[in-house]
């Protein structure tokens, strides 16, 4: 009986239903709005975690699938399911959404509309992760883009929000168009035994496209999504977008949306067009390394607290791309772990940045200082996030970066310079990351507390709960990586077999 319950659809659509419910409430009842939002987000988080543990690792494959025909004339169906690859990301979304609601408790300007658009965004994100039908994936993807525009444009940082929102929307739309073209190419090239076209990704994976076809269409498909993943040089929208967005949106944005790009690039680009992947991924690796190194260096010279974190995200996503580009088990598991770990970590960073900004009203690092006195828990949380960021053992960053580097070494059989890339990325990325993290921590949290901040309030209970949850996962994964690594391993195995990787 339990298998009949459409857990995935419940998880995906609860936020949307909540959004509709919220619009029916009168706008003055702010507390009710916040409480309902928190409850709804908590439910999705709890369900996603339950789903995580309910997944049968021995069996593997896609589980909890649901399938109904939607537009049969076009071969489109509502087809969703979870496997080892997207289930951690579903959990990640649940966690970040819930903590995002908690840290948005203090929004006074039209919280009802804020949470409405926020939940529409969350539905879109969930939907992309669980979609096994390409059209459905794009559908949810587009659904996720426009609420971003409104959320950033209305509640974002007044100085740059309109510009950032427009830039973000256009970049992401153009990127999705490219991927859509590639996806449609696949759609039209393959005819099912029944004589129709289909968007079903499982069938398309068996379609047997010719190697030339795959090589031709891999780049637009992959790169279109890689824009969302922040792959250099298409990362330009990301720092401005992150900085301009309100805190919870930045958390979701950097924490989850960029993973959406990486995941979609993988699911639609690499898995459906493996020959193309084999040909081009080695070059993508070079871009990924630029991400890692360039992102780190630029982060170091930023004056604005949030921009440091924004560029740090660009840098860490490079590691994800690097991991996938190794096309072996280590790299993929590492990339999967990194997606989760980085998601939580960056959500934590932006949450803390938001807490500081809400109280100090500036983000200029030279003018900040001594925040540990006013918000010690936030400082500790940020430091832990910083340690994750540097890959300090004991935390999730280490257990995710290590397999990526090992994977890069192993990929020496693909191209001799892969290990060199790994070395370069490690040598430059890690110490520079350590340097800018320590710089920010030292300047913002320690040192003298400027007199104008002598009376700022501490962080709220909701903030503390959110930080506690995020820290819990960062440490938990660091200490016990198996809890997720095994699942991801199960998930990536079939795809790697198809790619011919180890």
């Amino acid at each position, binding site marked *: 009986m339990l298998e009949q319950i459409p857990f995935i659809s419940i998880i995906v659509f609860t936020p949307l239903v909540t959004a509709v419910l919220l*619009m029916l409430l009168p706008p003055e009842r702010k507390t009710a709005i916040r409480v309902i939002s928190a409850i709804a987000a908590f439910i999705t988080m709890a369900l996603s975690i339950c789903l995580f543990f309910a997944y049968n690792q021995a069996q593997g494959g896609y589980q909890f699938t649901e399938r109904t025909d939607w*537009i049969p*004339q*076009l071969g489109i169906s509502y087809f969703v399911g979870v496997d080892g690859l997207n289930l951690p990301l579903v959990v990640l979304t649940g966690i970040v959404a819930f903590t995002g609601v908690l840290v948005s408790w203090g929004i006074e300007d039209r919280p009802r509309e804020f949470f409405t658009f926020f939940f529409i965004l969350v539905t879109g994100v969930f939907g992309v992760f669980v979609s096994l039908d390409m059209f459905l994936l794009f*559908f949810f993807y587009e659904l996720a883009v426009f609420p971003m*525009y409104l959320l950033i*444009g209305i509640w974002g940082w007044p100085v740059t*929000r309109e510009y950032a929102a427009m830039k973000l929307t256009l970049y992401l739309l153009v990127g999705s168009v490219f991927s859509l*073209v590639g996806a449609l190419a696949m759609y*039209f090239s393959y005819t099912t035994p029944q004589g129709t076209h289909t968007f079903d990704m499982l069938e398309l994976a068996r379609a047997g496209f010719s190697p030339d076809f795959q090589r031709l269409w891999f780049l637009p498909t992959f790169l279109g999504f890689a824009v969302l993943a922040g792959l250099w040089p298409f990362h330009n929208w990301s720092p401005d977008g992150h900085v301009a967005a309100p805190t919870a949106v930045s958390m979701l944005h950097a924490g989850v949306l960029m993973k959406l790009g990486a995941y979609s690039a993988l699911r639609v680009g690499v898995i459906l067009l493996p020959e193309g992947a084999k040909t081009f991924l080695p070059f993508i690796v070079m871009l990924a390394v630029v991400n890692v190194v360039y992102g780190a260096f630029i982060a170091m010279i930023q004056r604005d607290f949030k921009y440091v974190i924004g560029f740090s995200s660009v840098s860490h996503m490079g590691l994800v791309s690097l991991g996938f580009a190794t096309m072996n088990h280590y790299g993929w598991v590492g990339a999967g772990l990194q997606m989760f770990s980085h998601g939580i970590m960056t959500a934590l960073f932006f949450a803390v940045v938001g807490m500081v900004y809400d109280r100090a009203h500036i983000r200029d690092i030279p003018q900040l200082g001594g925040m540990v006195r006013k918000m010690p828990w936030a400082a500790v949380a940020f430091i832990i996030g910083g340690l994750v960021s540097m890959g300090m053992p004991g935390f999730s960053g280490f257990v995710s970066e290590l397999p990526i580097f090992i994977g890069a070494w192993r990929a020496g059989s693909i191209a001799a310079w892969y290990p060199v890339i790994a070395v370069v990325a490690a040598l430059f990325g890690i110490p520079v990351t350590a340097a800018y993290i320590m710089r920010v921590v030292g300047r913002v949290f320690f040192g003298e507390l400027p007199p104008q901040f002598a009376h700022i309030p501490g962080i709220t209970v909701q903030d503390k709960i959110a930080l506690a949850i995020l820290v819990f996962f960062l440490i938990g994964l660091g200490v016990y990586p198996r809890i997720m690594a095994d699942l991801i391993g199960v998930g990536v195995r079939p795809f790697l077999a198809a790619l011919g990787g180890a």
Partner: protein
Amino acid sequence: MQFTTFDPNSLLAILPEILLLGLIVLVLGLDLALPESRRRNLGLLAGLGQLAILAAMLAFSRPNGEGISLWGGMFRHDLFTLIFRGMFLVAGAATSLISLDVRGINRQGEYYAILLAAVLGMNLMAASNDLIMLYVALETTSIALYLLAGYLRDDVRSSEAGLKYFLFGSVSSAVMLYGLSLLYGMTGKTGLREVAAALTNVQDTLPIIGAAVMIAVGFGFKVAAAPFHFWTPDVYEGAPPPVTAFISVASKAAGFSVLLRFFTAVFPVIQPQWGPLMAAIAAVTMTIGNVLAIPQRNIKRMLAYSSIAQAGYALIGFVAGGEFGLAATTYYLLMYVLTNIAAFTVVILFANLTGSEEIYDYAGLSRRSPYLAFAMLLALLSLGGIPPLAGFFAKVYVFAAAINTGLVWLAVVGVVNAIIGLYYYLTVAKVMYVHRSEEEHIPVPVPRVYAVVLALLVVGIIVLAVGANPWLDWATQAARPFFVAGGG
């Protein structure tokens, strides 16, 4: 022409038209009888009356199977006609209802009567199966619309709009008539099917192409496709707002109905020629509409150019042809009718309070009247093609139809245009939601009738989206007869 025995079914087939005629008489009569203060109810009568007619049509006038030709082959009674008549009735009803509080027209019985006449003419256009019937219906509609556009005699812009509309319209009608007469000359027939059959025997395609081009001028004017779109911005801006709404949706839909029926039925023989031409027109229409919409500051002008672009998208389905293509266009028009009227409703309400039609005066609307802004947002997003709204599905269908027929370049142009279009739609959204204004605390008054109409339209957009597939099936069914041998 055959004279057959009188068939009650043929009366039932034109029941909506008969009822419309009755309603016109009723409205005019009451206009004489009622005092000035109560004349607003005429609008209610007209609106609700049309809805009642819609219900009656769905109950009693449904065609069986593939449809039949009635009244001597002049009137085609099939699913296609039904759907379009539904569109016109809905559009007419909505227009009547949203005219209730517009000064200058709301208490004029003649206004509602002419509106009903326009709806009547459009119904006949959709059903026409004969060259002469077509022309008569078209002119009925057009004249009614010219009058409506210039209705506000004291307003110089309205008069200008009416006159411009009349001049452009007359010229294009004349050209079309010449094309129709060429067809008659070549074939000696007036019934569409007979003409189509006769054309297959004509050796020289050049005159056929000539006729087709001239007829296309007429239809193109109605549809406001490039390069026959020049009248649109000025007329839309000048006409009374409800009339603009009506022209933008109903007259366009009517134009499409004849375009679809006529070209598919009559000109398959020269399809290879008019196909690429139409494709080019579609592409140009979309592009011009979108590009010119960007710099607009007046919302009615923006919506005018937007509707030009929307016509372009709808044309794609027509160009693609086939059952699916036509069904896609029909679905697109369904979506468009609901969406555009919703947008214009908001414009009317806003103009009633502030007297302004400038986009940047909409600043802070989301704070003044959140539901109004939200309705506008949904309408804009649907026009822009954002999921999960109906406009998204409509675009998917037309693009899919294009790709299916091999017109990939057209689909690409369409997609690019969609993105361009998003820019100006989102600008309005941005103004409403992001910009602030000093008048934020003054809500926009929304009379109950308007609220109901708007709510119903929004629900309609959502229903159309959620149940996209059943609607598409229905539209496909309507298009099928065109491609069955002996159909059309």
